[in-house]
């Protein structure tokens, strides 16, 4: 029996935030998808919630989340426009914004990748210094090492 991810299934997930690197990844996927009308693009942004203790009050947490959602709406609109500029209409784009407690952002992205049954994941590379990688870890590196049954495109 063929594994569902043995082949390209036409669903590309682009993990994004508001950074220039993420925008580059969207632009790259837009260029590829503009050549193949069957490709569906899922723009995924994960709002990684800090420890509840980070907030002095529940109201502050709600305010923080609302602010992050607004930021996400703004850059998602920009990315949709970028895709539209390549002739990719809204019917081929799904935008997903998730609020998650993520000990590891890459794990959260890979969870979504499995849930959404995509065969390709694209993301921008931040270009961390070595010491940043030691202290903070690298999302793209972990996805390259740990993602299964899919292709990983790291756009630099």
């Amino acid at each position: 029996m063929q594994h569902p991810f043995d082949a390209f299934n036409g669903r590309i997930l682009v993990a994004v935030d508001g950074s220039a690197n993420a925008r580059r990844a969207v632009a790259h996927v837009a260029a590829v998808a503009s050549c193949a009308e069957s490709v569906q693009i899922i723009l995924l942004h994960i709002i990684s919630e800090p420890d509840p203790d980070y907030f002095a009050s529940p109201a502050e947490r709600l305010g923080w989340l609302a602010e992050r959602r607004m930021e996400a709406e703004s850059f998602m609109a920009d990315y949709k426009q970028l895709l539209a500029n390549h002739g990719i209409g809204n019917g081929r784009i799904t935008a997903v914004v998730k609020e998650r407690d993520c000990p590891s952002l890459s794990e959260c992205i890979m969870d979504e990748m499995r849930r959404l049954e995509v065969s390709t994941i694209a993301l921008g590379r931040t270009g961390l210094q070595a010491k940043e990688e030691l202290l903070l870890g690298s999302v793209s590196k972990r996805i390259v090492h740990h993602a299964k049954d899919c292709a990983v495109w790291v756009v630099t």
Partner: protein
Amino acid sequence: MEQHLHTAAADPDFQPLAERALRELAALHPNRDLSQVEIHTDTTDFYRINAGDVVLAEDERFLVGNNTREGRFGLDDEVKHWVKRATDLATGQRKIIKLSFHERFDANIGGIRFECFRSPHKESRILELTRGDSRFMQGHTRLDQTGNPIRVLDIVQGRCLPDVVSALTEAHEEYFHTRFPGILDNFIGAAQALALLHENQEKHGDVRRDHLFVHSDTGAYCWIDFDYNFVHRENIYGLDLFGLGNILIYLAGKGDVTLPDLRDHHPDILATLYWEDLSLVWQNRVANLRKVYPYIPKELNEILLYFSNNATIYYERADQMISDLRAARATLG
């Protein structure tokens, strides 16, 4: 008693508790003028709580002593107003009480910025998780009348690790062959303790040498201070592991081996060092200690190199480092 009632007049439990606290205080300090004792049931404004006051927290009562002080990197005089020495009025035992202090600040490690915050609830969780485990400071949490968690801490009988190491007078080679194997055993124990936190999805948050105490009776190591937290990105435990690496380099070197020290005392060794030999984060410290002390086994030195400019991969979990530490320990006899 009337003069004491202003802080919690509406609480029917307050008066008997306050009276009990004052009776206990009178027994401990017969000459104390009880009319001057202020009793607090709300610790939100901890600046108002002074030495000689009493704090009531659920069923426990504490006579407040002096504030503690931050003790590293030239901050010896920075008073921590939310951390107070105290006496448990029921038992007469000395304790530390940590009052709730919510603060956020940017920390900078080697030029990398972190958003940090104090997390009293995290410290309370870890105290619960590690109850009875001598590798961690012990204590419990009581709530004040407004729900602020007060951490009631046992005082660790011992000295902090840098005090112990800096008191050793022997030369490095003798230290390394005679004392370091035992020190490494204790360090591995501390790393295993940290792994326990990670297995339970907790981070220490401020792993540094002066947050390790050496029990005066057993010589074993004990982690203190769990209320630091930081907004992590990809690797939730990266900072803890970095802290462990720093401590290991410090212990293997019997102190920090810095470029200025080598320049002043061993320019011949300095001449052999390259950028790759230095700490990845602290650029004036040597991580490749085998170049300075050639008798350091390769297996141990390779662990140190994970924290050097030469590293291309890093530990992601404590158990990876512990496995390497065990192998390195086996080479020391």
